[in-house]
């Protein structure tokens, strides 16, 4: 980066907002997907939307790629820097700007953490529904970029169902407001397009979110089963009864053991546990509880425990939410995969994963959002053993193939990012990807907004399908293919 650009960048970002020291830059070389890392040209930490806008305008003028970053908890390398590019960290935009309880709206800056919103509105009996496992630390800006879900999205939906409007800086530096606190803003639903676009279309600088009122009653069941298959059948039977629980989570023996070792949730001695949460008016919850309890018994549950108070519930959820980190207790390293299958295909796909486990010689733990078929296989390996890390990666990749073959998706909540862009053609045809590029090009014709993410080998905007021709930007040395 030339010194003139750096000087202008420092001015645009505001006082003390530019990081250039190599040790500082190292902090931003990756997000939570640590095996991919790139040292950026510069990092800025603007404290206002105007400063974000000034930085983006500058990048646009000089065609310098930029990457927005929230709190760096992403698991797919969505915030992986671009070499010689600028990382725009949004952690200083961390104010809750407006709370409107009667209308159940809250307006926040992107650096506010997910859980902070719920804490802020809890005294009014309200909460923010999407609850990714990282909610203590992850930012709303990142949640919007990834369309984050969480354990309760089975009933309450994803981030896209809870974002009503945003203020965003477009890749050319224009600041726009899309949607808003009032529903049904006329026009194309660009808010829906931005949510889940993994920072490739714009940088959100403000968001108006929908709040929910706390349900009158919450009841969490912890059920032990002799096998994952039996637990899976119980899930199908519950949904077959016309019940959509707030959450349905499942863990297998390996992840139960890991969780027990780490946080002692006192799970039953079973080969699979099922966590079913019901919420709503008390009378309705009580009625549904009776049905769910009897279904679980009918399907061979070895134990059914109902947690009615917050302390009991917290213990169960602590065991579930600690599952990833707890794997460190049973394996020196592990690879977290994120794939989705139609729920009815769970037994078939789990069987294939077990066969793969036997074949590969690597242990695979399974913890998943059973209600919506979102699998998180945890592939255990030891990086001290030469080649094992690569082997684990191959195993993880094969599991994705099973998901796609079962009619599912290559990611349910962690995003495509840099990690899975090469897997996109397994799920989408070249035509599908070309059509998605139309949206990309409408927002970011110069390709500077988080380039190199989501798409395998994107054509540059304006380029037509066909034999290779050098794009003017390539000729000018501004852009390259990857």
């Amino acid at each position, binding site marked *: 980066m030339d010194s003139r650009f750096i000087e202008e960048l420092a001015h645009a970002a505001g006082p003390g907002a530019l990081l250039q020291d190599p040790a500082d830059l190292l902090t931003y070389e990756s997000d939570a997907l640590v095996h991919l890392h790139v040292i950026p040209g510069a990092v800025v930490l603007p404290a206002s939307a105007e400063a974000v806008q000034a930085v983006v305008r500058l990048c646009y003028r000089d065609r310098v790629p930029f990457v927005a970053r929230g709190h760096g908890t992403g698991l797919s390398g969505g915030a992986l820097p671009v070499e010689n590019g600028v990382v725009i960290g949004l952690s200083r935009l961390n104010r809750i700007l407006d709370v409107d309880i*009667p*209308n159940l709206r809250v307006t926040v800056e992107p650096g506010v953490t997910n859980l902070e919103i719920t804490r802020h509105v809890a005294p009014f009996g309200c909460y923010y529904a999407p609850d990714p496992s990282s909610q203590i630390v992850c930012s709303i800006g990142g949640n919007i970029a990834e369309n984050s879900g969480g354990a309760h*999205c089975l009933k309450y939906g*994803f981030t*896209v*169902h809870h974002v009503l409007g945003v203020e965003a800086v*477009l890749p050319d530096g*224009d*600041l*726009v*407001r*899309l949607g*808003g606190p*009032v529903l*049904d*803003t*006329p*026009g*194309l*639903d*660009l808010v*829906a*397009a931005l949510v*889940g676009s993994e920072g490739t279309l714009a940088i959100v600088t403000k968001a108006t979110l929908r709040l929910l*009122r706390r349900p009158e009653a919450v009841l969490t069941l912890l059920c032990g089963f002799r096998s994952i298959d039996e637990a899976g059948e119980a899930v199908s039977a519950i949904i*077959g009864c*016309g*019940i*959509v629980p707030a959450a349905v989570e499942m863990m297998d023996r390996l992840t139960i053991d890991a969780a027990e070792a780490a946080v002692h949730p006192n799970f039953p001695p079973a080969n699979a546990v099922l966590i079913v949460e019901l919420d*709503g*008016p*008390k*009378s*309705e919850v009580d*009625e549904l509880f009776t049905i769910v309890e009897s279904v679980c018994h009918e399907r061979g549950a070895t134990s059914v425990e109902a947690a009615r108070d917050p302390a009991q519930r917290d213990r169960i959820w602590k065991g579930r939410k600690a599952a990833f980190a707890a794997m460190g207790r049973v394996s020196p390293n592990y690879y977290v995969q994120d794939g*989705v299958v*139609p*729920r*009815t295909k769970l037994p078939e796909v789990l069987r294939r994963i077990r066969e793969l486990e036997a074949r590969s010689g690597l242990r695979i733990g399974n913890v998943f959002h059973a209600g919506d*078929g979102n699998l998180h296989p945890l592939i255990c390996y030891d990086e001290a053993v030469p080649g094992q890390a690569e082997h684990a990666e191959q195993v993880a990749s094969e599991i994705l193939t099973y998901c796609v073959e079962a009619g*599912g*998706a290559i990611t*349910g*909540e*962690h*995003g*495509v990012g840099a990690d*899975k862009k090469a897997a*996109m053609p397994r799920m*989408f045809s070249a*035509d*599908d990807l*070309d*059509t*998605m590029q*139309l*949206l990309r*090009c*409408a*927002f970011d014709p110069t390709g500077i907004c988080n380039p190199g993410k989501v798409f395998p080998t994107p054509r540059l905007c304006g380029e037509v399908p066909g034999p290779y021709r050098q794009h003017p930007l390539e000729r000018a040395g501004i852009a390259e293919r990857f």
Partner: protein
Amino acid sequence: MAESSLQGLAQLSTSRWGAAAARAGGPGDAIDGCAPLLILEPPDVPTLADMLAWANKERLVVVPRGGSTKIAWGTTPSSVDIVLSTACLVSPIDHCAGDLTATVPAGATLAAVNQTLARERQWLALDPPFADRATIGGIVATNDSGPRRHRYGTPRDLIIGVEMALAGGRVSKAGGKVVKNVAGYDLARLLCGSFGSLAIITHATFKLAPAPPASTTVLVSAPQAGTLAELALVVAAAPLTPSAIEIEAPGARLLIRFETTEAAADRQAAATCALCAGRGVDAQILKAEAETTAWRDYERRLSPPQAAVARLAVLPTQVGDVLEHVTRVAGKRHVNCVIGGRVALGVLVIAVTGPSAEAVATTIDELRRNAWARGGSVVVRSAPADVKALVEVWGDVGDGWPVMQSVKMRFDPNRILNPGRGPGGL
């Protein structure tokens, strides 16, 4: 285009796709008085794509048509060459009951879809008007919904995947068949409410809901609509799970529906009546036939013949003031305004009839200015042609307009898909 060359196109399309798939347009096909030259009715998606590619090459304006229940929504077209009907894209309905999802073709009516899903006691939780004629494609393209939006949302909230045909004839898909999926751009939601301006929807995949075993409605009456708007917010904030809260004025009433197990519906209805009694408001519980009739009559009253129908959106807490404003403006302009809608969401439907097109149009303008001042909006849905000529259909679409135009330009560079009619006049 000269008449002779138009006839030539008609002959060409008939010889290419057969008389069953191509015919000349008649007066009955006119949109806001604008008659199309050709009606194309492809038997399958590849033919639809082929027709689009041809229209694109010939630069012919294409208006997609489902069941015609919303064909007059949007800006009056300046010209229409082709109406492309999805009437033949009706099967199969791919219901994955165990996964609570279904993939349905664009031309299937909502009623037909829900009839199929009902076999497994599930449903696509949308209830826009005219379910027996309204097609999935049209409902998604207009993002239309009904009273149960209160609980289930709009098509945008339920869609999980889409297959579409682009202007150039390319068929592509986005999203998938699983509820949880963040791979790639969410084009399915972008198409919701796009009014056929970006692509023609050929299939859509939705997440479904279990069909509720029982339904009960509480009918609340009060002299003042404002009292009911306030009460609706109290009910919405109570530990109850209504599937719909609709307001109706004049003759101010609330219809509050509970759809769950029979016991839970009864308890919630009783709790609602107690809330009303506490505020000195009359409430009665309707079940079975009486309930069905009440909802049918409500829907009928909301669509008087020859009315200009607009959707007004404000914050839920502003609805009371807005209702008062509508009444005042109606009195001043000597027009009749029938109001209904999702009161606790702040989304109202207003049907305006009056002595002249001018009176109706100026009323809509005045309501729009009022809503706009509150950060809300008014969009005209259907209206007689003479009213549409005097009032803007969309109003201001805000700062997103340049990006919307850019999206349109990328998806439909020759502007053949419903040009000028979509959101903001895209």
